[in-house]
């Protein structure tokens, strides 16, 4: 009897890590015109970014069905002490609502806690990992829930993007909308605050943007765990990670992850970002 951890594909958790920690990932749907794929399952990131730039269709995402959550919870609930299900901010996606409905429909024999991460990408992934690590060490359901809720308050992410175009097309521009159609060129740096999309910074050049990413991590020190994410720039991401490793201490080793098709729909090519969980204060 252990606590099981569930998240969705917008957490961008690398597959091998999810597997090692027994984290279940529920895929969203990604659609190009009439073609529908399961995020990261029937559509790889490589294939996705190829299609994204080749056109003619702009991708759309759709939340997993209530029934998919219900089935998963029912299955896990057969022999779990409890289920903690951590999802993309409810302010930008209906996934959390679908999960909550799924929890009501599920025939699980254990309690299910559905948690709004108020975050996206590996900021969710790191929260899920925090929960799964505790679960693996035998923490009780209540302990895992408490730890998860605490991690939510300490999780942040920031992405340096080439353009706001994909965020706008996808309908998730949020509070960054004011920056659309700016006459001056800059590299938008976008993240979530209180669950909503904001433009954090507007560096004129990509090099300055990468400096801002480093500053962002430094601002959230001392660091418990962090991650470097990218959409189509693996070398740049690796270089950033190598540099950060030399200067930033964290409790657990940092991770390199990729924005999958679901989030890639909004970030587009060229995205480079950081997800971080701060250490608890005091």
């Amino acid at each position, binding site marked *: 009897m252990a606590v099981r951890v569930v998240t969705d594909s917008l957490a961008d958790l690398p597959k091998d890590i999810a597997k090692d920690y027994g984290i279940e990932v529920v895929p969203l749907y990604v659609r190009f015109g009439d073609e529908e794929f399961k995020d990261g399952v029937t559509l790889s990131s490589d294939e996705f970014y190829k299609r994204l730039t080749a056109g003619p269709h702009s991708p759309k995402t759709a939340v997993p069905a209530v029934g998919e959550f219900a089935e998963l919870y029912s299955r896990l609930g057969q022999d779990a002490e409890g289920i903690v299900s951590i999802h993309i901010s409810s302010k930008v996606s*209906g996934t959390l*609502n679908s999960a909550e409905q799924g929890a009501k*429909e599920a025939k699980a024999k254990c309690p299910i806690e559905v948690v709004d991460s108020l975050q996206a990408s590996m900021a969710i992934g790191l929260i899920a990992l925090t929960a799964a690590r505790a679960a693996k060490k035998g923490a009780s359901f209540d302990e895992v829930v408490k730890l998860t809720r605490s991690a939510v308050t300490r999780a942040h992410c920031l992405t340096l993007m080439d353009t706001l175009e994909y965020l706008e097309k996808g309908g998730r521009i949020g509070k960054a909308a*004011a920056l659309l159609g700016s006459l001056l*060129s*800059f590299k938008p740096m976008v993240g979530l605050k209180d669950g909503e999309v904001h433009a954090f910074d507007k560096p004129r050049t990509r090099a300055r943007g990468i400096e801002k990413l480093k500053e962002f991590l430094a601002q959230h020190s001392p660091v418990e765990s962090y991650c470097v994410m990218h959409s189509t720039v693996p070398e740049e991401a690796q270089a950033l990670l190598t540099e950060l490793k030399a200067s930033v201490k964290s409790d657990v080793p940092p991770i390199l992850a990729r924005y999958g098709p679901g989030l890639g729909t909004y970030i587009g090519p060229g995205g480079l970002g950081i997800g971080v969980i701060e250490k608890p204060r005091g």
Partner: protein
Amino acid sequence: MRARADGNDLLRMMAGASELLAVNVARVNSLNVFPVPDGDTGTNMYLTLKEVLRTARADESVKSSAGRAAKVMAASALREARGNSGVILSQFFKGIAVGLEGLDGFGPPEFARCLRLASDHAYKSVGNPVEGTILTVMRRVAEEAELHAERGRSLDALMERVCKAARKAVEETPSMLPVLAQAGVVDAGGHGMYIVLEGARRALAGIDRETKVLPVPGMSGSNGRAARVAEAFLATAEDELYGFCTQILVTGSGLQVDIIRTKVETLARSVVVVGDTEAVKVHGHTEDPDGLVAYTRSLGAVSQVKVQDMDEQKKEFSAMHRAPAKQAQPLGVVAVASGEGFGQLFSSLGADCVVDGGDTMNPSVQQLLDAIDQCPSDRVILLPNNKNIVPAAKQAAEAASKTVQVVASTSVVQGMAAILNYNVTKTLDAAVADMERALGSVRGVSVTRAVRAATMDGVQVAQGQVIAMLDGKLAASGDAPGDALRAALVKAGVGGGALVTVYRGSGLTDSEAQADVKALRQAFPGAEFEVVFGGQPHYLYLASIE
């Protein structure tokens, strides 16, 4: 005309719904602004419906009874629901399944009950039901059906009533949901629901001659009506939201939701009452929450009482409606700038108000105070963008009733550097510190014509000659604006890796500026150049070097 329908009829109805929705998917998508403007409400509903139909058609048992058919459909909808609107549509099927459980056939009373259950389940399925959406359409439809179900009508006649009510409800959605009125559209999900019902009605009645492309209710021809709805809404918005938002859960036995709703409607506005005979959720806006609670206590056990003062919500609501971009924000920025281009530049980089002013036209303290007042935040950052305006800005900051900090930008170029480093998600002090740090990160060049002959800072200038200042000091003179600018950039030591932004004044054409910048790119091969329209009156060029 038959009074009762069976499983096969239900299947036909949903096939009709799917067919009609297929034709109208793009229109439904185009309406989608709520809850997120991602334009796929129609697609989500259609894909859900298509899967429901595929499953039901593959199952022979659906023909035997309506109850069985509804159950198969509901199970499939729950599994296959796509998106928020799909999830709500799955609740529609769930309602039908619960309503028809154990029944082989159904007539008006049973179908009315189905629609009521559908509406109830849909309301329950969302954490925070919002009126003016698909939920409203489902509820209105259920109410209309209940009103006409018992009068010995045929199912066809009932469906006609239902579709009329759906269309009317869709038409009214912008008056309930401000974001729709702002966008001049009706609710996408609501319109989708209307199409589903209309398709079902036509299939049941065997009609296939009517036009397949449905006009969007309330938007026929132009957006004129939607715009009028928006105006009407503005006038009534403040009446709609008043008093206390009160929510109560009543549990007991033999509860009658309709009777309770009728009573609650006499006690409150914006009433939502959902539930069954054992549990009823009451929601309403009232000035007398105690009275509402007292009434519900007479019905059964009362729990989960939630009373919220709506004054705050009302303010936000009105602010959002009057000016979509002007919601209460954690921070705001007021910038002083002259020139149409700079006005747009500051706005597009996050300034909430731009006050016209500059070298020869310093704005008054009162003008600055007015702009601070208009700014949709209680914490305001003020960018004077001119050394002569800094004192007035400081005075305005002291006199203002809001918390105001001046980032003392002495030129518009510095102001641009500051606003580029403005981060709305930070605290006021942290944001100001970022912006102040940015002031020193750029050097500014300004190019203008000398109004008289002079020797300044060791440079000799003839009247009418073009001069270039670097950080306020005369740096170069020349016969053409491009030459003077180039000389100033040389003096500034522009080299590899520099980013030079050239703001064109109103005295030059775009092609003149492009030609000058082309020459600059050749002269400084390692630097990056960007040219934008500043529209400033006195300076031919302003430029920043980063």
